[in-house]
């Protein structure tokens, strides 16, 4: 298994080349002054107005030396740089609370919410940024692929379940790559994969170009609402497998039923601690009434992000692995 940043760069190179250009010059210099071995461990940069800039490396917090206090002018400039001076082009992203920058790095935003007819219209007075450094783990799906392949060339309908930050998207991305490229050891040929990537996190597209290795037979519908995206993919790209991230709304469940009934395999992720928890979610309940999912992969942080707690045969409830895998 190799922890790899798009383009094969180290984390510090990725931060220098792709993240720092989006920060104000003084902050850029402050972070660039940190030792390379520290930057290589960073997976998140947190900026909060009038508080010190913090870099997260696992559970450790790293501070530039001397500490850099992030001002409101810095916040304005950071927003302009992240939005490439074009806030109008990121209106939908602002409404969702994040912007994806080149390299697939996701910048979460907080500030004052503007409501329109009771719904979030946009964010203003942005006061906090959380920059998550994108990375892909090639081989993250090595342990699960043999349980998901349905010979000769299909995948079981699969739901990947975990609380946030346990590696759902990383696993889904690698399943997409392996399904697309094929797995010779399982005699599984590469199949057409359609990815409905609403939050630009699976393929991390920048101006339509995937920034991660998601396979040669993979078609990505970027920034499209999942429910519409899955149906559009079936109509336009005739995929063998459709993949999407973080299902949870009623229209997602309806679209999933459409996909499954169209003879197309589906692999999706959902927030939850167990299969029972997800099955109790009102919007998703209908998907478990007719045993539509055939496999469920449960992830946790028990032995670090990406720990596979169980791979369940949903029909029988049998766990297909003897113990946690990582």
């Amino acid at each position, binding site marked *: 298994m190799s922890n790899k940043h798009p383009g094969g760069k180290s984390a510090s190179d990725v931060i220098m080349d792709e993240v720092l250009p989006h920060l104000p010059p003084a902050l850029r210099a402050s972070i660039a002054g940190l030792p390379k071995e520290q930057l290589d461990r960073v997976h998140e940069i947190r900026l909060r107005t009038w508080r010190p800039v913090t870099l997260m490396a696992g559970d450790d917090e790293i501070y530039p030396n001397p500490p850099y206090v992030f001002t409101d002018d810095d916040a304005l400039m950071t927003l302009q740089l992240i939005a490439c*001076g074009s806030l*109008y082009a990121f*209106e939908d992203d602002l409404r969702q609370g994040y912007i994806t920058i080149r390299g697939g790095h996701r910048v979460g935003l907080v500030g004052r919410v503007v409501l329109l007819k009771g719904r979030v219209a946009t964010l203003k007075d942005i006061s906090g940024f959380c920059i998550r450094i994108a990375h892909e783990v090639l081989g993250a799906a090595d342990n699960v692929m043999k349980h998901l392949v349905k010979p000769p060339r299909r995948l079981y309908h699969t739901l990947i379940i975990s609380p946030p930050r346990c590696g759902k998207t990383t696993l889904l991305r690698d399943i997409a790559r392996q399904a697309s490229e094929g797995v010779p050891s399982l005699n599984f040929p590469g199949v057409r994969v359609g990815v409905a990537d609403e939050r630009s996190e699976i393929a991390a597209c920048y101006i339509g170009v995937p920034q991660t290795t998601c396979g040669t037979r993979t078609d990505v519908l970027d920034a499209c609402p999942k429910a519409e995206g899955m149906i559009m993919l079936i109509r336009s790209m005739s995929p063998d497998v459709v993949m999407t991230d973080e299902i949870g709304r009623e229209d997602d469940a309806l679209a999933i039923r459409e996909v499954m009934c169209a003879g197309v395999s589906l692999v999706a992720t959902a927030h939850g601690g167990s299969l029972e928890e997800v099955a109790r979610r009102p919007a998703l309940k209908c998907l478990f009434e007719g045993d539509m999912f055939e496999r469920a992969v449960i992830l946790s942080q028990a032995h670090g992000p990406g720990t596979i707690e169980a791979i369940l045969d949903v029909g029988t409830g049998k766990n297909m692995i003897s113990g946690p895998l990582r």
Partner: protein
Amino acid sequence: MVKLLGAVLVVGSSGVIGNVVASGYSERPRQLSELISGFTLLETEISYAKTPLSEALMRARGQKCSVAGRIFETASHIIASGDQSPGQAWETAVRCTYPVSALTSEDRDALLAFGGKLGSCSSTDQLRHIALVRERLRANEVKARDKAIETARMWRYLGLTVGAMIALMLY
């Protein structure tokens, strides 16, 4: 015979000079028209494709050597470099190009006013600002075109008349 030939040459050359000066007056309306076209293309890029500003300005620039092309391209490069905010980049581009253009201070002020909110508001507001600057430039263009027709006619007649007077004096 020589005198007659000389007189024809004098009248002809001063007529040509009058025409050259007259054609100079049609530059401003032409440049304003190019700017209006550029803003129309920019509007499409923003409203339909939501193209980021730097890319949108490059696509809307039209001919590279035109005044509109220079302003749009310069602003695009500065925005892409990240050295200045979009508003500052636009102001720099307008101020750099203004001295080599046929635009007046009235046109320049309309362009500078447009840069104030560039890139820092919603697409609806951005389109409103584009519509506003286009209206102002269109009004300026109509005035400039009327003035150009009057002034150009005057210079053409003046060229021929002065030529004829010189020929008479020399004859």
